């Protein structure tokens, strides 16, 4: 191997570089690389400018989308709660109870026996039937309200 090392050193000393380059390659290279860097910088700054212009518009767009999404979710939530709410029924019951306590037994009988009463339905109201029922069953006014 020592002999071969010597041969390699002789080969290096005796011969020229077997590789060559195009004419004026190294003279022109610095200018070419500066141009390449300048072009890349220009493209990058253009991209940065576009991004700066577009960013606020994107932000506004996303804001609207977010607002719409929240609104739709809120409306959907309210509507679904409304349909399941028992509050309306309670209100009706309370109203009946309040109004009903102001309504006396005599009022009830007067209404049933009234001659000038307006017939809402064409069906004949058998008021005697209701009064007889109340009397026969011995149902007083307060029991009737409790039942209601």
């Amino acid at each position, binding site marked *: *191997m020592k002999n*071969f*090392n010597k041969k*390699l050193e002789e*080969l*290096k000393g005796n*011969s020229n*570089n*077997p*590789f*060559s*380059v*195009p004419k004026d*390659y*190294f003279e022109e*290279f*610095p200018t*070419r*690389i*500066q141009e*390449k*860097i300048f072009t*890349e910088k220009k493209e990058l700054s253009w991209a940065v400018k576009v991004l700066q212009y577009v960013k606020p518009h994107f932000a506004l767009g996303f804001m609207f989308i977010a607002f719409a999404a929240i609104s739709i979710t809120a409306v959907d939530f309210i509507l679904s709660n409304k349909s399941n709410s028992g509050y309306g029924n309670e209100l009706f019951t309370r109203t009946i109870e309040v109004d009903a306590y102001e309504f006396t037994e005599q009022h009830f009988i007067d209404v049933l026996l009234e001659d000038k009463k307006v017939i809402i339905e064409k069906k004949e109201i058998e008021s005697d039937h209701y009064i007889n029922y109340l009397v026969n069953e011995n149902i007083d006014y307060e029991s009737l309200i409790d039942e209601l």
Partner: protein
Amino acid sequence: MSEYSDKELLDLFGDKEKRNYAFNLIVRKYQEKLYWHIRKIVIKHDDTDDILQNTFVKAWKGLDGFRKDSKLYTWLYRIATNESLTFLKQQKTKYLLPIVDYENHLSETLECDEYFNGDEIQSKLQKAILQLPEKQRIVFNMKYFEEMKYDDMSEILETSVGALKASYHHAVKKIENYFKED
């Protein structure tokens, strides 16, 4: 034009108004050394030109953050070496060839290359070097052609001096065997 030291070039580069001028000086100072370093790895001039441009573009982008605890030229060499190795890997993927076959391809097309003017023995030596594994080839080129010190090679290739010496020794042995077989 008197040559600036690396420190002077870096200081000049630090001044934003003189940055382009400083970079131009850096390119002129190192372009040939880096060119031949890359050329010995990838062989073809056009590929070398592309890699050399990529090397200096990366250097331009990285010089601001360059830590002055390593030498400028070892830093540049490291970029050039890594770019060359990346190129070779890409060639393998591009042509779906194992790297050894790509080296064989280079070996076969060497004499037809318009920018190769070597004689028979130089051609044989280049073909022998192309048979080496790529990192061993780089070590051989740096030691034999560029006459680089092992300490500098160690910094560039991030390998111990002992490993580099062993690698060079094995490379010479393989080249000797190639010459004997042929």
